């Protein structure tokens, strides 16, 4: 138990250092406000993608409506802060909660079935949410809601992203509930034979994952200051899926990498020469396709980045470097 807490303290210290570094870079202007905005955007979508990874990567449930839950969170928090003067953090909690409750309501009948019913139903659910918002004047209809207060600063995004990461990490890798969730993906019949109510765990994972989407939606509303039904349509769900798949389904550090790359890359390509700019989306697509061809399990597979893993990795590189230099020497002797 002591070791567990020691590890916790190390992680917390690491996070504080990382936070401080970011803050210093912001304050000194080494990261300008343009990049600050991209970093915050990465953080927001990371929260949503982590939730998606819980559903898709760890539980093996195929959902196509993740962005719809972001939309629910976004509208919930925007309406609460704008029309009712609810404090921002409270509105965020409400956003996550509303999305999670809706996930339970639609997940309960569907997740009892085995097969890809969830994909079809969540796809339909996404459309329903979009059409519903488009037709309700109170929600701004197709025009959307503008003039939402700018509240999603770096600090709140950083803390919430770290929290979501920790929640899934603890749950999946250090608890019987997490093993139950993993067993659902592995073999549902065997899981039931081990006394696991698989439906229950599918619903739990779906609710937590969608709750994170709702939270991310709430942050997004107070980040872009404008939301409309189209901000969260199917293509957004699909984008979120590419973040998870590129990083590796079932790897949280993979999701961090995948989300960062896929949000930063198009921005970075935009900044390059005119030729690149023109073919920006093409380059992006080619990179994704070749990734899927050469490493279909994603960058990280199901592995996590750990301190021991990093040491091992750098050790290997050192060894390769050394052995190549010695073989060069041998060549000279011969």
């Amino acid at each position, binding site marked *: 138990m002591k070791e*567990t807490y020691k590890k916790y303290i190390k992680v917390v210290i690491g996070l504080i250092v990382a936070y401080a570094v970011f803050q210093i870079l912001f304050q000194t202007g080494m990261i300008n406000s343009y990049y600050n905005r991209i970093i915050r955007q990465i953080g927001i979508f990371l929260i949503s993608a982590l939730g998606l990874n819980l559903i898709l990567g760890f539980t093996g449930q195929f959902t196509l409506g993740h962005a719809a839950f972001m939309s629910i969170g976004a509208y919930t928090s925007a309406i609460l802060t704008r029309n009712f003067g609810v404090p921002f953090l409270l509105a965020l909690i409400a956003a996550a909660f509303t999305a999670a409750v809706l996930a339970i309501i639609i997940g309960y009948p569907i997740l009892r079935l085995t097969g890809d019913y969830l994909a079809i139903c969540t796809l339909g659910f996404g459309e329903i949410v979009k059409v519903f918002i488009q037709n309700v004047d109170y929600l701004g209809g197709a025009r959307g809601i503008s003039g939402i207060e700018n509240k999603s600063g770096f600090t709140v995004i950083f803390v919430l992203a770290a929290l979501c990461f920790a929640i899934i990490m603890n749950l999946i890798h250090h608890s*019987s509930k997490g093993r139950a969730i993993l067993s659902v993906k592995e073999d549902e*019949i065997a899981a039931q034979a081990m006394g696991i109510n698989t439906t229950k765990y599918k619903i739990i994972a779906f609710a937590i994952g969608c709750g994170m989407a709702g939270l991310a939606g709430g942050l997004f509303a107070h980040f872009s200051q404008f939301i409309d039904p189209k901000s969260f349509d199917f293509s957004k769900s699909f984008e979120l899926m590419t973040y998870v798949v590129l990083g590796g389904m079932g790897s949280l550090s993979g999701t961090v990498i995948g989300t960062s790359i896929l949000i930063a890359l198009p921005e970075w390509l935009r900044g390059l020469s005119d030729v690149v700019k023109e073919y920006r989306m093409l380059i992006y697509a080619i990179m994704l396709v070749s990734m899927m061809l050469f490493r279909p399990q994603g960058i990280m597979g199901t592995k996590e980045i750990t301190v021991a893993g990093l040491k091992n990795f750098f050790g290997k590189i050192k060894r390769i470097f050394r052995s190549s230099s010695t073989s060069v020497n041998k060549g000279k002797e011969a």
Partner: protein
Amino acid sequence: MSLLSVKNLTIRFGGLLAVNDFNLEIGEQELYGLIGPNGAGKTTVFNMLTGVYTPTGGSITFDGERIDGIKPYNITAKHIARTFQNIRLFGNLTVLQNVMMGYDYQAKSGLFSSIIRTPKQIKEEEKMHEDAMKLLTIFHMEDLAEEKAKNLPYGQQRRLEIARALAANPKLLLLDEPAAGMNPQETAELTELIRWIRDEFKISILLIEHDMKLVMNVCEKITVLSFGQLLAAGKPEEIRNNPRVIEAYLGKRGA
């Protein structure tokens, strides 16, 4: 009173009467064999005992309680555990995690304490880890603990499945062809293991097996199933000399 009592158990798949009017009595700490030619309905009986299939007729009483028609995961909580004919391990999880899965439904920590990791939850997790390692040591698999289950050789996978089932704390253990695909030496070890498990854990074991030597060696009582019909039940020597059994089952092999 017997531990398991199956009366007139029947199941139909459309027009196929897969098991008809099947009866079975298993006592405490009994080693019991269920044999029969391919397609006789043996696995189907297991699937009804464990709630995977709902019987169309008859009753299953376990430990004084009717359990037919109950969900599979609730059957486990009533202390019946099983292995599968076509091994069903959690292939991408480690050997250790597979065994710990057996303990998981018995865990007391809730969802919230798992997320924030209360001291109690951490202790419980550590205890499970310890127990699982002990069980793996008994099975001589402690060195494989961190290996992915799918990377184990076939014989080891079968043994791991038994270890996982034992972790679920059964009073009755159902083994579906545990010797399938094993070489003679592994089968001999398995014979010993099955006896040892019964004595050590003081549980009953119901065994489906095509390996006659193993069944005759290890089982105290045997029931024979053929085309879904109960053919005979009794001690191994009675079964061996039963003309109907010889005709339907052993005779066919002799020919």
